[in-house]
């Protein structure tokens, strides 16, 4: 029993490392596939000698395999290179921005969960009714409205017309309201839909009838039994959505001039700062792998069958 469990854990960790490795390799390959960065950095009119000098400076003149090897060792020793535009270590740049993005993601996900989960449960327990249709419509809208459009509309309404909230930048909790609301919409819709599907599946299980037959109250049956069984897919999506937001809240951060990771990524792309782009991709991959590990841990805590 114990040995089997240990083997399972080892296999999971192995798989996570493998996916991390693939992600790192892809980040490297895509960086090279985008062409010679020196042309972009120096402009098309730069003399070849100057480009050659920059190539040497960046280490791009070395064989590809050496570059790859250096890059991988760098990642595992916490060295993600230096930015071409900021002349600073990429890790410093990233970790300066992470707290801002983290704030935004935490607030956004909190809103998404607080609205999305009850909405999904409501729809599932009142399947086929007006409530259900209303919740489904909200979810559909939430998943189809583009984030940048919603962001701009909220700015127009609350910042420009009503003047209640700041239109952008960070600093006070009031600055956080609009961007986190904007950010919450998509995950909220996703969570609501998934909760509904998962709950309605759980509510159709025979043990629900069985629990009701024993005289357990409906509220308890819904939350204690059905919800607990429906929780896993919802938790998974919450964690994965968090990962997506953490590594790429680009649109929201751009609309609200939020000094987070997404904005940094945008700046990096615009400046063809390929070491920084690569570093951000690597950071995202690491976050994803860690969050996946977290999902597994949660899974084993919540579901006795996985233990």
């Amino acid at each position, binding site marked *: 029993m114990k040995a089997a469990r240990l083997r399972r854990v080892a296999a999971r960790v192995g798989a996570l490392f493998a996916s991390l490795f693939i992600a790192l390799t892809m980040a490297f390959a895509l960086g090279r596939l985008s062409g010679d960065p020196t042309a972009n950095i120096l402009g098309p009119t730069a003399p070849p000698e100057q480009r050659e000098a920059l190539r040497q400076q960046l280490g791009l003149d070395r064989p590809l395999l050496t570059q790859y090897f250096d890059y991988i060792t760098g990642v595992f020793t916490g060295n993600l290179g230096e930015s071409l535009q900021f002349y600073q270590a990429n890790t410093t740049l990233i970790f300066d921005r992470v707290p801002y993005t983290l704030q935004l993601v935490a607030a956004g996900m909190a809103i998404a969960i607080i609205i999305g989960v009850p909405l999904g449960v409501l729809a599932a327990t009142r399947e*086929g009714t007006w409530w259900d249709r209303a919740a489904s419509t909200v979810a559909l809208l939430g998943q189809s409205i583009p984030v940048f459009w919603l962001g701009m509309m909220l700015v127009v309404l609350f910042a420009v017309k009503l003047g209640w909230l700041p239109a952008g930048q960070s600093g006070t909790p009031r600055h956080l309201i609009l961007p986190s609301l904007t950010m919450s919409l998509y995950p909220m819709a996703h969570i609501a839909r998934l909760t509904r599907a998962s709950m309605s599946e759980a509510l159709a*299980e*025979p*043990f629900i*009838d*069985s*629990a*009701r*037959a*024993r*005289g*357990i*109250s*409906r509220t308890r049956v819904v939350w*204690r*039994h059905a919800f*607990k*069984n429906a929780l896993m897919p919802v938790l998974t999506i919450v964690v994965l959505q968090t990962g997506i937001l953490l590594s790429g809240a680009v649109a929201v951060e751009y609309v609200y001039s939020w000094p987070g990771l997404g904005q940094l990524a945008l700046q990096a792309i615009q400046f063809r700062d390929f070491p920084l782009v690569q570093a951000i991709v690597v950071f995202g991959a690491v976050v994803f792998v860690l969050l996946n590990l977290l999902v597994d841990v949660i899974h084993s805590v*919540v*579901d*006795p*069958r996985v233990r």
Partner: protein
Amino acid sequence: MAEMLKRGSPAGAGRGPGIPEDVPVLAVDGLVVEHRNRTTGEVFRAVDGVCLRIGAGESAAVVGESGSGKTTLAMAATGLGPRSGGEIELLGHSLDAIGRRRLRELRREVQIVFQDPHGSLDSRQSVRSGLRELRGLQRERTAWIDDAGLLERVRLSPDLLDRYPHQLSGGQAQRVCIARALLMRPRLIVADEPTSGLDVSVQADVLELLREVRESTGAAMLMISHDLAVVRAVCDTAHVMRHGRVVESGPCETVFTSPADDYTRELLAAMPGGRWRARR
């Protein structure tokens, strides 16, 4: 064995406050259950004017092939399923006259054992925590026996208390379900195909257990089954259902050995367990 079961007999079973002995635990009168197909709008009558009475301590069976409305009847009769028409009196209370809260309280005295034992247990709940939840519903009513004693009564080792459903065999899971029913000291036990989800080797044991539980607690029983051998082992009376109607009712022996209705005869020939008729 019967002695052992009687020792821990739930005192006061079969007697609710202020309900006289002669009131039937379940009286179903002209029950109709209709399902409407949402897309075509067609109405299908799953139960069509069924009348049924089960007195205190009696055991009745509803038999019929699948799709004859047996389970729908049982679900409606306990207020768990939909009902389109007719009267149901559960433990002397008309289901029309009582609210949700009262119905929930009544349900504690009416326990159901389902066909799929694993399905009817919450996979996230250990045996012990499931029992604790039920005890929380009615502390005094369930205080008559401790967890270990309860498991012993359904002939399970107390070691199983910390197991989760997936760690139990089908027979063990069904015994846990029976234990959970027993804990509430029910006045009526509804058993919906209690053995058909089990291996043949444990069916007889579980059936025997149900019979002993019934005898030792004095609870009435409504058994839903398509298996004549099962019905015969546990029940006094039998109701034969076809297309939502009861086509024949009477004492088990009479119904099965000298059926009055053609359909019953047909059914007897086709049903599992029908072989025993040859021995009459």
